[in-house]
């Protein structure tokens, strides 16, 4: 609910709090602030797509392009959500907690990158809140899809361990269709559309899809948020524009967009902290694809399906289900720690960059050998590296609108992110590639190659750190309460706030940090006269995790 107010010659809408983006950082803050009594408006650049419009299909214009974004940069391409619910709608819902050592990482700045107030132990109660809210559940071996099983068996054969990470999936509803990047048709994936967002709406939050925020300016004692309204089919087209004033602004547009909005706001808001648009991390991500020798899978690993096939199951499953954490080990030096996770990527994005095994140099991504590799697509096994990179990404000047110059009607755009991997990052990737090769080529089980980085640079589905928290103003844009330095009342709560690569899937950590930021945001809102309280239960009313954090609140509001 919003009202109009006179502001000079124009009449602007105003509300208590504007939230930019509706992924984890936006949905969680919108829920708590609305439940606490604030008037909240959420501006989301993408469409609001109900479950029955999540398509099983690749045709341009179906949900696979409506809700998904691929922004190519200079040396790094970023894949992300573009819809109400953000990344939670398109992601694979793998929800491990980040290991202890990650919080001690120094990267290249010569000091701990995380704020002193945040460790794994300090974050546990906030992880618990998210786990209760989504909810997050354990997997069982009885329901692990074939590709995960194959990866586990290969790891075991090579003397490695393999784990079943926790997931935000109700596996009893899951059909293992592997269309989850186009949204879950069966509501098995516990996206934000099933918990925080409907709860926020029930408390009066207003969500406006296809509203792409361009910049923030000042309007008297409030912030003014400027947005364009995007055409619902051709995202290159703008159908309108407007402004809305608010006392508090939460920027949670994703690590590929949040810094761009802030950069574009600098002319009117004043100088941005140095960390805005710098220290971007791709979460150290990289992929390898193996072509499994079916006979060897049977002979070496002893695998067999009911119909007699050993594997041929690349298409079956729900993204990543099995991971080896052998190198997620704090006793190893920085830039040698990584997780190796079995993954499914649908054809298109999941096939073009794969390189045919046995072809030397840069020649493996197209041609007869690549076609032959595609002929064996059912026997592919793709392994996802989540490693330590060097926060080397930097955003150039913002494009005219949004965070990219859109090329296609949907999905494809060209952004301003530049990323040149340092020797540290390359070293970590090389070790991970070698480890995958050692596991999968043992005894002739498979032939494996990394995806090429020559075409679209490196790539990430987990952009991080482009506006990060920290104690050092020179290397962090936000304080530990997620408030933008020198711009009181603007908070950033998405993946851009995470200081560094995590060596695991980051969604749960992003969400836990957002939960942890709420008490500080509530205090800032109260100081501006907004009648809001902290203390909402989980979206479904559960209270045990909420009670557990109540004693922590005083420490979180200290500046």
């Amino acid at each position, binding site marked *: 609910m919003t009202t109009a107010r006179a502001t000079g010659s124009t009449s602007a809408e105003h509300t208590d709090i504007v939230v930019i983006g509706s992924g984890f950082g936006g949905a969680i803050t919108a829920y708590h602030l609305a439940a606490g009594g604030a008037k909240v408006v959420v501006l989301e650049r993408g469409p609001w797509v109900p479950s029955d419009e999540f398509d099983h299909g690749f045709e341009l214009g179906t949900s696979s392009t409506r809700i998904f974004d691929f922004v190519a940069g200079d040396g790094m391409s970023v894949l992300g959500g573009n819809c109400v619910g953000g990344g939670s709608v398109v992601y694979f819902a793998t929800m491990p907690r980040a290991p202890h050592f990650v919080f001690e990482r120094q990267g290249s700045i010569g000091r701990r990158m995380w704020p002193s107030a945040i460790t794994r132990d300090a974050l546990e109660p906030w992880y618990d809140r998210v786990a209760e809210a989504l909810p997050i559940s354990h997997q069982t071996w009885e329901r692990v899809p074939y590709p995960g099983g194959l990866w586990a068996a290969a790891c075991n054969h090579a003397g490695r361990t393999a784990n079943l990470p926790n997931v935000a999936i109700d596996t009893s509803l899951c059909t293992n269709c592997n269309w989850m990047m186009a949204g879950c048709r069966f509501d098995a994936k516990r996206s934000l559309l099933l918990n925080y967002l409907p709860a926020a709406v029930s408390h009066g939050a207003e969500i406006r899809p296809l509203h792409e925020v361009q910049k923030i300016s000042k309007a008297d004692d409030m912030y003014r948020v400027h947005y364009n309204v995007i055409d619902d089919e051709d995202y290159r087209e703008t159908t309108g524009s407007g402004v809305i004033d608010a006392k508090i602004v939460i920027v949670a547009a994703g690590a590929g967009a949040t810094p761009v909005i802030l950069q574009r706001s600098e002319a009117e808001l004043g100088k941005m902290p140095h960390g805005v648009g710098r220290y971007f991390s791709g979460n150290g991500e990289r992929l390898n694809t193996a072509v499994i020798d079916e006979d060897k899978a049977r002979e070496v690993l002893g695998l067999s399906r009911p119909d007699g096939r050993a594997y041929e199951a690349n298409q079956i499953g729900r993204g990543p289900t099995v991971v080896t954490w052998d190198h997620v080990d704090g006793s190893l030096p920085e830039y040698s720690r990584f997780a190796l996770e079995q993954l499914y990527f649908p*054809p298109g994005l999941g096939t073009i960059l794969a390189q045919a095994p046995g072809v030397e140099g840069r020649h493996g991504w*197209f041609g007869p050998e690549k*076609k032959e590799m595609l002929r064996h697509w059912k026997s592919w096994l793709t392994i996802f590296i989540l490693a330590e990179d060097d926060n080397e990404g930097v955003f150039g000047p913002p494009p005219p609108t949004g965070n990219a110059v859109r090329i296609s009607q949907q999905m494809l755009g060209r952004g301003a992110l530049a990323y040149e991997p340092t020797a540290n990052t390359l070293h970590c990737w090389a070790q991970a590639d070698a480890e995958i090769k050692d596991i999968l080529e043992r005894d002739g089980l498979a032939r494996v190659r990394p995806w090429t980085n020559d075409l679209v640079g490196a790539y990430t589905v987990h952009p991080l750190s482009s506006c990060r928290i920290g104690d050092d103003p020179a290397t962090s844009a936000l304080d530990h309460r997620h408030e933008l330095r020198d711009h009181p009342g603007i908070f950033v709560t998405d993946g851009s706030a995470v200081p560094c690569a995590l060596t695991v899937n980051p969604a749960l950590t992003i969400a836990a940090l957002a939960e942890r930021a709420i008490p500080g945001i509530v205090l800032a809102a109260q100081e501006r006269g907004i009648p809001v309280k902290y203390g909402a239960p989980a979206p479904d009313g559960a209270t045990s995790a909420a009670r557990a954090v109540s004693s922590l609140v005083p420490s979180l509001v200290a500046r």
Partner: protein
Amino acid sequence: MTLEAFADTFVPGEKRSPDDVAVAGAAAGPGAVEAGAIKLLETPATGVADGLDDVVSTLNDHANSYAAEHGISLDDAVPAFVALDYEHRSALMRALTAPDHPEKEFWILTALFCFMAFDTAAHMDTVQAMEAGHPGLQMMGFAKPDPDGLWRFPDFSYGRQLSRPHPDTTPNGDPA
């Protein structure tokens, strides 16, 4: 014809007829051209449809330069890129998509849709593409959907523990 030869370079196919000059015949079975690459490239939603004339003229300019550089005489009866044999078409595309080539993004973007025509049939409804026996999806062994047009895999798991977990895993199932 130039666009067909371009698409055929990325996912090559067998010649559609003995006098097919656009498809080089570098691989058995249908390739990107028969999978619908030109149709996808001409779809306005891609954002490249308006620039296809530029693709053709620029590519043929590059082919002429390439031929001159390598002392290759081209058949004037067909566009220059089409006149190159598969190995030379392939070498030229490797050069144009190399990390340091100034036109790299343009060529990669256009190539992207040639791949997508083959391995996703992005110009078609996927269920209809499966029913029509789309050559790319068929060759890859993409599974058929249920009668309601949705995919389900009731046979999905080996159903048994296949590895031991990391010894430092927390009781909650997370890395330590």
